């Protein structure tokens, strides 16, 4: 009985492999024609016209500009806009930063009111006091915050 069971199991397995191989053919248009697919669907009780209508609805939904599937398009547009703003940024920003330390600290204070800037400034000085930061580092921080200000303002 056990041998017979093994034999049946083995037969079953082989048939499953062959069936799977035939199923895979459905995914290759050069192996199984659309007409054959439609005929088998109809035999099984499917309505091919309903399948067509449902597929058309899905494709329409995909192409709607404000549909739920368009998040990536919106994100991409936003990214393009950011790049545009960056490109418009005058190349002399670094030179616009004050040369003396008192001027740098004034500029930094002026940027604190910008949304999100205060948190960034605090994070920057979490492990070091402003006295420990060189003029170049201060200038670089001010430049970064200015770019961020330009970016955030017109987009969000």
């Amino acid at each position: 009985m056990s041998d017979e069971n093994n034999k049946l199991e083995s037969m079953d397995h082989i048939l499953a492999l062959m069936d799977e191989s035939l199923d895979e053919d459905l995914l290759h248009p050069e192996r199984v024609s659309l007409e054959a697919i439609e005929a088998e669907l109809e035999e099984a009780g499917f309505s091919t016209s309903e399948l067509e209508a449902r597929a058309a609805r899905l494709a329409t939904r995909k192409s709607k500009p404000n549909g739920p599937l368009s998040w990536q398009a919106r994100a991409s547009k936003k990214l393009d806009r950011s790049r545009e703003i960056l490109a418009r940024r005058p190349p002399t920003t670094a030179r616009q930063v004050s040369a003396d330390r008192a001027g740098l600290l004034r500029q930094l204070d002026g940027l604190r009111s910008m949304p999100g800037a205060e948190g960034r400034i605090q994070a920057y000085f979490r492990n070091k006091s402003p006295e420990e930061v060189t003029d170049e580092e201060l200038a670089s921080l001010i430049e970064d915050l200015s770019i961020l200000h330009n970016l955030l303002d017109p987009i969000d």
Partner: protein
Amino acid sequence: MSEEAIREDVIDWSEVAKRLTLYAWRRLDRLGMGRRDLAEDFAFEAIRRHLDEQYVDWDRERYPTLLEFLGSQVNGLIRNHLRKFSTNREVTGELDSYTLQQRMRTAPSQHRVLEKREETARVIGILRERVEQDATLGALLDVMLDGIEKPAEQARALSLPVSEIYKANRRLKRHFSAVRDTLAQANLS
């Protein structure tokens, strides 16, 4: 729709949906869960997820065509459904009678299992008759039933070149397809 057309994203979604629905249907049917609504839902869910792009990316190296990729997604959905189904069956004691009835309607019964065994023996029998005149195919079927599935191992077992084994496998598949077609026609009439 050619494979090239699929690769270039000039896609006929209607054809994709039909191919995937039949693909899902055949697989579910063999599992004793042949429900048209499920097959259709799995096919469209695979497409929807692909279009959504929040889901898994199409691995073009593993699945060179979109249909192959979507087929793998349908398989995943079926596997998840089966996993959920078997988990739910373990807690049927907590289910109300309506839900239980619904579940039982889709459960493969003992009767179905026996029927399937008979059908398996019948298909193998018909297949054997068909390949009787082709000694290589008869021998190939025997080694397969002995659990030797890899072409290289089949070639060794039959002392044949691997290229011959590939050809024989293709011939066997054509015979098998014909057997399935004949049986399907017989079931219809």
